[in-house]
């Protein structure tokens, strides 16, 4: 099990080593110590490897992730798991702005709070935040599911496309074209699976409200023809 101390070893060496992994490697479980808030830790991975980072990380940790399972034992700076394609990223503390931004797939789990713009422009990623999310979360969210066990800040789901939002607590305000929708059995099944995948226990899908697009903003409407 490779163990990398970023206090003594350059970050570029770690990322290069992770990028060079091949199918016959035995190095499938890595631990990283002393991240000290550095940016771009474990970015661009494309291998089913397990990475455990012990401490707070800076910007864009696990960005563009494919296949890998990355755990941050601490807080994450801006853009954790930005543009994730697949795999799983887990933050045991809080995440700063734009967590999971533009993600195409995979699962991002944040045990604490995520600040503003969580899931901005998400395109298929699933995000489970056990705390609350800040303002403008799921802004222009296109696909995927954002699950918030706590509260959501102002303008949730502004200009949303077809992502689905589930919030257990209060929503400060909904953004343009985002509306509450019925929570049907099919949604509860999906939500239950996500909660299980994220390791959430003792919380029922019935406790959530579902939000999504009213579809008035992005479809052509004849009344707006003069604007084109």
């Amino acid at each position, binding site marked *: 099990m490779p163990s990398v101390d970023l206090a003594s070893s350059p970050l570029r060496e770690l990322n290069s080593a992770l990028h060079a992994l091949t199918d016959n490697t035995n190095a499938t479980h890595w631990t990283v110590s002393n991240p000290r808030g550095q940016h771009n830790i474990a970015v661009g991975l494309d291998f089913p490897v397990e990475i455990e980072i012990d401490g707070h990380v800076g910007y864009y940790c696990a960005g563009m992730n494919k296949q890998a399972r990355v755990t941050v034992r601490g807080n994450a700076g*801006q853009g954790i798991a930005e543009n994730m394609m697949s795999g799983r990223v887990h933050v045991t503390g809080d995440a700063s702005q734009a967590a999971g931004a533009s993600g195409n797939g995979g699962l991002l789990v944040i045990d604490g709070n995520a600040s503003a713009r969580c899931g901005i422009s998400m395109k298929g990623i699933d995000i489970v935040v056990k705390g609350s999310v800040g303002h403008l979360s799921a802004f222009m969210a296109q696909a995927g599911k954002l699950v918030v066990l706590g509260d959501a800040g102002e303008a949730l789901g502004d200009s949303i496309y077809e992502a689905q939002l589930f919030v257990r607590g209060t929503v400060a305000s909904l953004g343009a074209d985002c509306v509450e929708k019925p929570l049907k059995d099919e949604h509860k099944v999906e939500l239950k699976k996500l909660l299980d995948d994220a390791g959430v226990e003792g919380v029922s899908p019935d406790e959530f409200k579902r939000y999504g697009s009213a579809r008035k903003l992005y479809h052509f409407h004849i009344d707006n023809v003069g604007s084109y």
Partner: protein
Amino acid sequence: MCGIAGLFLKDQKLAPELGGLLSGMLEALSDRGPDSAGFAVYGDGDNGQIKLTLRAAPSFDFAELMASLGKLAGAPISYQVHDTHAVISIPTDREAAVASALVGMKDVDMVARGKRMAVFKEVGLPADVARRFGLNAMTGTHAVGHTRMATESAVTTNGAHPFTTGTDQCLVHNGSLSNHNDVRRELIRQGMTFRTENDSEVAAGYISSQMAAGASLQDAMTSSLSALDGFYTFVIGTETGFGVLRDPIACKPAVMAETDRWVAFGTEYRALVDLPGIDAAKVWEPAPARVYLWERH
């Protein structure tokens, strides 16, 4: 860009380490602000004395100036030279005479006034600026620092942060204000003077004008949320206070940490990693449009 570092000590046993800790924080933020750096340090204050920070051209002869100012003050002036700056301590009842003498001098400028605050800033890499001023050896209760990547005005010493527009008051800013010209005009109309065209100086001036009118720091910070438009993270120092404020959209990054011994602000967590006990500190992102304030009592 730009970087902010602030440290407010709860445990005064750390006072001798204040400058050294801030120095490390500023250096960690070099790539956010490599063109200039500055800091305000709140050190000891004596009743009946006032501290003036003077700034002069390189190789200025402060000793000669102090001899002539000493005659005006009626006693030798206690002073410390820090590269291009000097901090003098004089009895408050002699301040008027000394200040009026300084006004007429073209090679030296009075840049800060406080019972406890001294302000140092220069063009250059943060580590070099900190070393030139001897920040490592400075002691005190709290300090506010800044590394600058200029966006709104020229790279000059006057354009560096912190900005001070009132006694023991200073402000550092990461961001850019959009209505600073309007606010500056209004403050000038009220009698305030400004050294620069810089937007951040206007923010400092706004806080000072509110406090001069009787507002608490808390109130002044709250009212700046509606008076100032644009992107900002401010860290503000007063004789006893340490405040943090982010704009409602929270454009600019910010991290705070707190232990039983200190409260710290960093634009990035990297600035905080060498603080004593950081591994056990509470670390969080300050919320948008919320006033955070710590006061010494």
